[in-house]
């Protein structure tokens, strides 16, 4: 296993009348190279799980093991050296006032010192162009454009390139197509899959789009109230259809009394 969450416990507002138990002994493991799609209704714990993996939320009990090492108490900043993350908000993954080139150069230097050396290396332009060409959005011809002038879809494509350009071991996608129009959303999802396949990056993707969850990835996890209710991989996953998942969603709603 590359990543393992072991027996995670987490309550929100512990000790108050609003106490909400989210995780009570949640465990989840991702082997190296696997691409997991995670679905689930609001409040099912998907995003909190990602936050626990990335270190921006701390479990009350349980262990997070990454590549055999216990990283439960490792800071979010340190974990970011092996983890790449793309958020729902396209603005979150780039700097609006820096140019595309400057954004890429900063990300290119990840893992090395940010010293008084030249910020934008001269001989890397071609490499950056090649990276951007994968998006097929013409971004490779706009290296000196401030990122703030790009559209949401273009910015998210750039954020994706930035998140995957260094030697990360794990890619976290946090509803990264949810804020885009249907066409951009489709483009970004196709690009995401290409990037992941090309490099074989271990990926956890949270999505509200059931079709993406069914179509993409090697494994599908459906969460509900801090537990996994569906966990299928391989042929079992390939046999899943969007309607099957909708049925599970409905059953859960009925169970909840809706």
């Amino acid at each position: 296993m590359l990543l393992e969450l072991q027996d995670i416990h987490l309550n929100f507002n512990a000790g108050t009348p609003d106490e909400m138990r989210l995780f009570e002994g949640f465990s989840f493991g991702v082997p190296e190279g696997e691409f997991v799609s995670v679905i689930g209704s609001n409040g099912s714990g998907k995003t909190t799980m990602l936050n626990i993996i990335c270190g921006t939320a701390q479990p009350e009990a349980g262990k997070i093991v990454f590549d055999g090492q216990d990283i439960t108490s490792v800071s979010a900043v340190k974990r970011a050296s092996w983890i790449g993350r793309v958020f729902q908000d396209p603005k979150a993954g780039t700097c609006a006032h820096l140019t595309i080139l400057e954004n890429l150069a900063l990300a290119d230097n990840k893992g090395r010192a940010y010293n008084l050396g030249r910020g934008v290396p001269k001989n890397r332009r071609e490499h950056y162009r090649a990276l951007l060409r994968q998006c097929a959005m013409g971004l490779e011809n706009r290296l000196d454009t401030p990122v703030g002038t790009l559209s949401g879809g273009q910015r998210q494509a750039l954020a994706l390139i930035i998140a995957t350009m260094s030697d990360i071991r794990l890619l976290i996608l946090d509803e990264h197509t949810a804020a885009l129009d249907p066409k951009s959303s489709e483009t970004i999802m196709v690009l995401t899959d290409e990037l992941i396949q090309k490099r074989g990056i271990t990926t956890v993707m949270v999505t509200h789009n059931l079709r993406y969850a069914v179509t993409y990835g090697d494994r599908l996890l459906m969460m509900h109230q801090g537990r996994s209710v569906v966990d299928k991989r391989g042929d079992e996953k390939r046999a899943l259809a969007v309607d099957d998942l909708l049925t599970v969603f409905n059953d859960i709603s009925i169970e909840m009394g809706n």
Partner: protein
Amino acid sequence: MGVVINVLKVTLEEGLMYALLAFGVYLTYSILDFPDLSVDGTMPLGAIITGVLILHGVNPWLCLLAAFLMGAGFGSVTGVLHVKFRIRPLLSGILIYTALLSVNLVILFLFNDGNSVASFFRKPTIFSAFPASLIPETVGGLYIRQLVVSLVLVVACKILLDVFLRTKCGLLLRATGDNAGFVTMLARDPGRSKITGLAIGNGFAALSGSVIAQAKGSADQQMGVGMVVLGLASVIIGLSLFKGARRIRPTTAVIFGSVAYKACLSVALALGLPTEYLKLLMAALFVLALIAGDKPVLRRRLKHAA
């Protein structure tokens, strides 16, 4: 005619000297998005350190360095208060400014025989010692040494700052003000970047204090009053003057802003405005600059240009 030229020259000199302060404010306010009030304390700190050191016979150029380092030291304390103890930016700045009110007086008390003004009129300064002594004192009856030295100093600092902002460290600083989460994703602590920026910003404020004190031949606590407003106004006026001009670097715009702001004040004084109204006018001009500059739009553009 001679009088007018002299007023122009003095305005230009002062504008240039205060441009150093505006560089610092540009770095903290525009780039880091941190409204830093400690500048009101670090600017006179630089002046007072310089006064005391010059009185003790220290080389005036070395005083510039000492002032910068002391300013940077206190600036980083502002940063630590904010980053490590999560105190709000405005409050962190006010706290350091308040503390510096005492620190500055204590320095004067300990090293200036308890005198609240350090006067060093006859001592060598960067405007009289080598290499400034190589510049002819007057050209056509006009004292030009101060103008030449300030100009060289400001241009040198501008180039250094421009180069710095294009280094890896400088880019990371700009990214920090823009999107701190981005810096975290690069596995860097954005807090450290903020502290670095505040250190450099306040270093510039103290540097400008040192230069201004050397021009005046004296230093006291009073010099710091209204420096935040002056610095911010210079930055905002400068950047709105050159709003559309992509070719003009923001640091250049800031220099022009500082000179323009000083020019407005000189004009008012020349027209007979009593000096007690000066700070009122400073504030009023700043408000005008803010309104005319249409802040949010301006700030976006300004960072584009950076």
